[in-house]
């Protein structure tokens, strides 16, 4: 291994790309079905919005787990 630090940076870069793909797809699907639900029943939009925010928080949490690992890779 010539340069483990360089490999760590490379891994952090690739990893953050993969993480954002996962997070973006997840929240995209979530937003799509939330929009469809609001379109079908506009008077349930308050409940749907609340549930959407909760689910977005969970998905973001998982994405940020990966981000924390990558920050660790870059720092150490």
């Amino acid at each position, binding site marked *: 291994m010539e340069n483990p630090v360089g490999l760590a940076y490379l891994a952090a870069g690739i990893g953050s790309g993969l993480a954002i793909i996962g997070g973006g797809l997840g929240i995209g699907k979530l937003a799509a079905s939330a929009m469809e639900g609001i379109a079908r029943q506009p008077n349930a939009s308050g409940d749907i919005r*609340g549930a959407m*925010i*909760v689910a*977005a*928080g969970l998905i*973001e*949490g998982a994405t*940020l*787990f990966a*981000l*924390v690992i990558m*920050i660790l890779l*870059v*720092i150490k």
Partner: protein
Amino acid sequence: MMLSAFLLTLALAQAPHQEPAAPTPSPVAETAPTPAEAHSEGAAAPAAAAATHEAPAGEGHAAAEGGEHGGASAVLMHHVTDEANYRPLGLPIAIYSKHLYFLVVAMLLVILAARLAIASYKNGEPSGIGSVVETLVVYVREEIAVKNIGHDGAKDTPLLLSFFFFILFAALFGLVPFTATATGNLSVTLALALVSFAAQMHAGISKYGIAGHFKNLVPHGLPAPLLIVMIPIEIMGMFTKPFALMIRLFANMLAGHMMIAALLMLVPLCAAISQTLGIIMIPISVGMALFIMCLEVLVAFIQAYVFTLFSAIFIGMYAHPAH
């Protein structure tokens, strides 16, 4: 609750140990500072903190002499991680750590807001801040506490309110320049998650006893091989839920501030390439940083709400097990 969070943070204060390269002084070495050492470190800290967010050109250049990436990331990390012997407003007081100082400020702001709201009751909320606080309090009590914990959820409302307001104020306060976000520190969020964990344990154990609480983790009437699988999963789940709360809050706050700092540091990085490019980048990067700051306000609200909501859900799961 905030007092216990503060004490827990003090006890867990490995806080300012996430170091970049050289600039940030390690407070592990500062535990017994000699006066001369404190003076020199203190002199370094305001010089480093005096670099404004709008024009970090001087510091960026000074740190860029150690290599482009090394200098830039060091400046970035210095802006988002903790800093020992912080001197607020240049007063000759050296505080142990910057995040701890802003934690106390956020705590005092919450208490101040609550007192002002209570004092504005004449015969039902004529004043401004009281009505806002009352709306939020009623929202937390009805939508979050009672809906998720059950009919007796209203007695857990003070804890949930403390979570909500403290996280909200800490996050909003961290957007002001020259401040730091207290919840952007792993020890602070660990303390909050531990308080939430203690509340969950209390909710379960005070109703069912220790053995009953652990028996409620798994559903009744399961066949034995399934029980052998379920018990470690449930026990691990008991610990990973507050852990997830902690990481979610910490990473959201940290990521937001890192993005703001990185966008603003585009200016000296481009200025190192050419002067005019640096000047062109100033409105672009300040505009982008302003947009991210607006997003951060939204994220502050959402993260406070999510933390409170999940605490309520977990407390409800242990107080009224659905199995």
